[in-house]
């Protein structure tokens, strides 16, 4: 939940054009707590949540190390901590270098990886075993990650929207391929169908939210400042995108899982 809130906070900071409102790091305007005015509120909230997520990831890593018998789970927890710490440092470098596009895109992409790893660790604690081939769900994860990178590139004005739309079509097709096989196989078993249903539902929601974000951006393109409609539509699209990615990871971990 904290990781998802952090994704939302990052989206709010970007959509409010507040990412560079605090030009120093790791302090904020030379203090632990800066004056919470204007865009500083979004950027500082993002940093506070990042610290909380890092702390929780550390606790998770040590607890998993101490209690988990499965070696791959222990490794996953440590990789999660490493990714979160790397993401924090990358955020600081972004601020110091005044937000070059490549690093901004990398920061958004690594955020998705951090969220995905967090979901993977959580899913590992509640394994579901679904018989089937794991290729399609794994391809869905990859396609959705590529789509995240493309979305970040669009958001930071590095590429046009066409690539992101093309990526959406490809990702949606792969998600449907991965999900339909499960749905057809377990037509009468709600528990087994659930991960695929969740993934399909979230993907549909993401397509709709993408259309909403685009429309909101187009309608408010001439506004002198970021408008609430555009901000919330875009942040919703970012958050649902993270949920879709997480759902794809859960499905990929469940299908053909004999562990």
């Amino acid at each position, binding site marked *: 939940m904290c990781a998802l809130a952090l994704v939302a906070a990052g989206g709010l900071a970007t959509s409010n054009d507040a990412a560079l409102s605090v030009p120093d790091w790791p302090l904020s305007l030379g203090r632990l707590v800066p004056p919470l005015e204007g865009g500083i509120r979004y950027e500082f909230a993002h940093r506070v949540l990042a610290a909380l997520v890092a702390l929780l990831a550390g606790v998770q890593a040590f607890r998993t190390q101490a209690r988990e018998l499965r070696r791959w789970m222990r490794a996953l927890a440590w990789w999660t901590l490493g990714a979160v*710490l790397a993401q924090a440092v990358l955020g600081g470098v972004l601020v110091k270098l005044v937000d070059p596009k490549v690093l901004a895109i990398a920061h958004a992409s690594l955020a998705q990886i951090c969220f995905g790893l967090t979901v993977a660790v959580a899913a590992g604690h509640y394994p579901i075993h679904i018989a089937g081939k794991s290729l399609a769900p794994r391809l869905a994860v990859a396609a959705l990650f590529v789509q995240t990178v493309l979305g970040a590139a669009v958001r930071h004005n590095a590429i046009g929207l066409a690539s992101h739309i093309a990526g959406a079509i490809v990702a949606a097709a792969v998600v449907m391929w991965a999900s339909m096989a499960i749905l057809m196989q377990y037509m009468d078993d709600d528990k087994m169908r659930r991960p695929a249903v969740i993934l399909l539902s979230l993907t549909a929601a993401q397509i709709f939210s993408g259309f909403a974000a685009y429309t909101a951006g187009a309608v408010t393109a001439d506004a*002198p400042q970021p408008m609430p409609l555009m901000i919330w539509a875009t942040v919703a699209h970012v958050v649902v995108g993270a949920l879709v990615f997480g759902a794809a990871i859960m499905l990929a971990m469940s299908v053909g899982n004999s562990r």
Partner: protein
Amino acid sequence: MKKIWIAAGLACALTLAGCGGGDKPAPKSDAAATPAAGGAGAVPDEANGATITGKVIFDGTKPAPKTLDMSAVPACMNAHKTPAKSEEVVVNDNGTVKNAFVWIKSGLPANTTWQVPSTAVTLTQEGCMYTPHVIGVMAGQNVDIKNADPTNHNIHPMPANNPDFNQSQPPGSGDIDHSFAREEVLVPVKCNIHPWMRAYIGVVSNPFFAVTGDDGTFTIKGLPPGTYTIEVVHEKYGPQDQQITVGAKDSKTQDFTIKG
């Protein structure tokens, strides 16, 4: 397990390496393009040079200025008796355009280095707005940035041809001086704390530039005889070029029309 601890240690080392304040990067300087402020160099000969005057006319329906929403920051909102308006497009009552940047883009003698003024051009943040909205400076000339508000600002120019810069400026703090090493028309400036704030800086390698005011006119003095490309640049409507030939002590008029 050992590998994990090594990785964690590296991550901590990277974290510590990132500690520190918001150092601004030292701007690159090209000695040939940026003579030192106040140093040797040619100055406009206003007695013998040509003068170009003109106005920038708006062709179209006068756009209604957009209201800025400062409600998120009461200190900003309270600084205005009536809601502040965007200065993106300001059409004067006489149908001319305010805040258009006019400059001599090309045609000056290639081997002339122009003296960079030692006096700075002031950019003030007041009422959470930049004043003036558009300024012109020479490459290497200081911009003196003041915070006259009771609130924090961050100065964030977004140049394409100059090094990036972003620095916070608390209320009551001293002025920030910054110069741009390379010619660039126009450099947008914003504040990430107050996302409606916008200014533009025209950075030019010669002293022949002007910004239109409340009457929409501009005057450029002291031009050597020659044929020039004179350009008007507007933040929304972009650039427009004209060719003009002037002789010694000529006084010529060059108007521009911006289509809305």
